[in-house]
């Protein structure tokens, strides 16, 4: 091992400068100033993450999960982005930091794996070059050594015949292999924090598990902190230490993984859980759907944002936004006035069913007509004047 390799190795395994969480996010906002209004994509998110731990961020499209990841890293540079609050990496404040300072963190301290490996790799640049350019820029490695390291990286992410792959173009690889390459690229300079933004969504189901396993093993080997963003609760089930469920820009439930699945409190999370098809169900079981659609992020409803679609909804929910409170298990936070599994919640649901509230019917019986009604009601509510 020569000097450069030694230096590279040191970078890869250096401990954090201080004990405690690597990433601390406190009341973090990301808004977009558009001609139509201020889009509150991320509206007050708080969490912390230690090295070696994985946080799963789950939500449907429009929940703000992707914006959260990109905004935390500082990748959003369009002129209309407004970031507020605090997000510190290793003590260094990311919100309001200069572009150059942020850029010095990218690659070596934090990295991101994107959703679609076909579009996140440069189609006209060879694989090898895409891996080594980071190495050569950050670690100042000469060409041959960079190639050596690229080979080792490709090996470590499980790509067979890596020497040949180095000279190939992305379109010559399969989807799963391309994603492995993007992971290799992200990990090349030894980041301590990895954002994985829907890393398996664009892949075949058979390949998904492999990629997720790869991410997990790399994470433990390198003692990285990982934020795993996905819309699929199944993906985070066995692979995360903690899960944060996002809805309409806010965290609506956050808990250690086991606690979340065992004692779900927020109705939205419950609905997400229910919508996962289970192998043991008899065939032709109707899929549970959540009627309606996510709220308008420019003018979100005053009360709980999930209220229009919630089976447990009560009048209070429309007017007062529930704060994050802690459940019995420490570290389990949720946002609900009539949570699942409590007396208040059960009563609320029963009352709704008795009054034929569409959301409740849709949730309990899987009635798609009722689900459609929820959406119609939402549309009418959002536009009382009749001007769409």
């Amino acid at each position, binding site marked *: 091992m020569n000097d450069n390799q030694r230096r590279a190795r040191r970078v890869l395994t250096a401990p954090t400068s201080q004990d405690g969480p690597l990433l601390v996010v406190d009341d973090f906002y990301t808004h977009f100033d558009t001609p139509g209004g201020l889009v509150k994509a991320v509206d007050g998110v708080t969490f912390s993450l230690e090295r070696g731990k994985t946080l799963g961020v789950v939500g449907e499209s429009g929940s703000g999960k992707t914006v959260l990841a990109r905004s935390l*890293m500082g*990748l959003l540079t369009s*002129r209309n982005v407004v970031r507020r609050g605090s997000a510190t990496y290793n003590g260094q404040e990311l919100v309001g930091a200069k572009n150059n300072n942020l*850029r*010095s*963190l*990218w*690659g*070596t301290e934090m*990295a*991101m794996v*994107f959703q*679609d490996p076909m*579009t*996140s*790799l*440069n*189609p*006209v*640049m060879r694989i090898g070059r895409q891996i080594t*350019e*980071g190495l050569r*820029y*950050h670690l100042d490695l000469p060409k041959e050594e960079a190639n050596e390291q690229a080979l080792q990286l490709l090996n470590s992410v499980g790509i067979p015949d890596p020497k040949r792959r180095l000279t190939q*173009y992305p*379109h010559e690889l399969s989807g799963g292999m391309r994603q492995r390459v*993007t992971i290799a*690229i*992200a990990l090349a*300079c030894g980041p301590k924090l990895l954002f994985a933004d829907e890393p398996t969504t664009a892949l075949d189901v058979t390949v998904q598990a492999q990629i997720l396993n790869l991410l997990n093993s790399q994470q433990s080997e390198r003692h990285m902190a990982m934020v795993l963003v996905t819309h699929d609760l199944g993906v985070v089930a066995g692979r995360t230490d903690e899960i944060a469920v996002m809805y309409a820009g806010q965290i609506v439930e956050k808990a250690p993984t086991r606690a979340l699945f065992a004692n779900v409190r927020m109705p939205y999370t419950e609905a997400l859980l229910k919508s996962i098809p289970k192998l043991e169900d008899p065939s032709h079981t109707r899929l549970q759907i959540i009627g309606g659609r996510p709220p308008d992020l420019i003018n979100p409803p005053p009360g709980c944002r999930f209220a229009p679609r919630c089976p447990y909804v009560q009048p209070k929910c429309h007017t007062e936004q529930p704060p994050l409170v802690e459940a019995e298990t420490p570290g389990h936070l949720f946002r609900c006035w009539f949570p699942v599994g409590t007396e208040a919640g059960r009563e609320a649901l029963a009352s709704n069913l008795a009054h034929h509230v569409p959301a409740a019917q849709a949730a309990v019986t899987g009635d798609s007509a009722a689900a459609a009604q929820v959406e119609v009601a939402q549309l009418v509510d959002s536009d009382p004047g009749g001007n769409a």
Partner: protein
Amino acid sequence: MTIVRTVLDRLVKLLVVVLIVSFLTFMLTKLLPGSPVNTILGSEASNPVARTALEERLGLNKPFLEQYLSYIHGVVVERDLGKSYSQDIPTTTSLAQRLPASLQLMLMAQAISLLISVPLALLSAYRANSRTDKAITASAFGLISLPGFALAVFLVYLFSIQLGIFPAVGYDRITGPGGLGENLKSIALPVAVLSAGLTAVYTRVLRSDLIATLQEDFVLMARSKGLPTWHILLRHALRPSSFSLLTLFGINFGTLIGGSVIVETFFVIPGVGELAVRSILQREYLVVQGVVLVIATAFVLVNFVTDLLYSVLDPRVRRTGA
């Protein structure tokens, strides 16, 4: 193996196109009213005996196809592109004399345009919608809308009349008495007029493609690697964005080979374009035919080369030969 086949395939198509072009060029003079006979005979045009004799000599009374074939034979084998009747100069000689001027105009204009437009487009696309960008885009738009001769008028007024830096007309060869200095001075304004239009178009086109590319995921990924901006712009964004630019660039090589007619006429530069116009106005059919044939063939050849270059730029194209 497939690459060889694709190239051969294209070469065959090229040959077919060139033949068709030559046929159409040949037809050109047949279709237009008036006859070369009139031009040559001049005052004797009404004399039927002279007419018949000349027609016999020129072979104009033979069947159409035979005329065409002998024409092709003349071009390919004997390098005969006809000649000017009033001055009795073979077209090949005229073209050879005039090609350097047009070539110099074209090469310099293209080079300067590229040198200016690429950095401008990069700057403009990177700072899209900023004031810099808006200024650049507006200027490009304005230049495109300014007709060449109008710009020429303005430049001559400013630099020749008022400031007296550059000559208003004329072309001094590099091999001439004034050497490179006079040559460059005489060609400065014409090149400026040509480059203005080219630069404006190239900047717009490249900027547009760059903006689209900069929104792609792989650019975001490159950024997330912590690479510096210039590296991303030049190494990641530029190549996939250059297709439209390359297409235009290639096409312009083809069109500019004909010399820029307006510029050459205005600045009195003895180039290919000026030859074409003068010959048309003087009804020198054969010269026109020869010039058009050369220009059109050159255009087709240049396009062929451009097409080949596509496969070099985009590896995805190589396989399919698209």
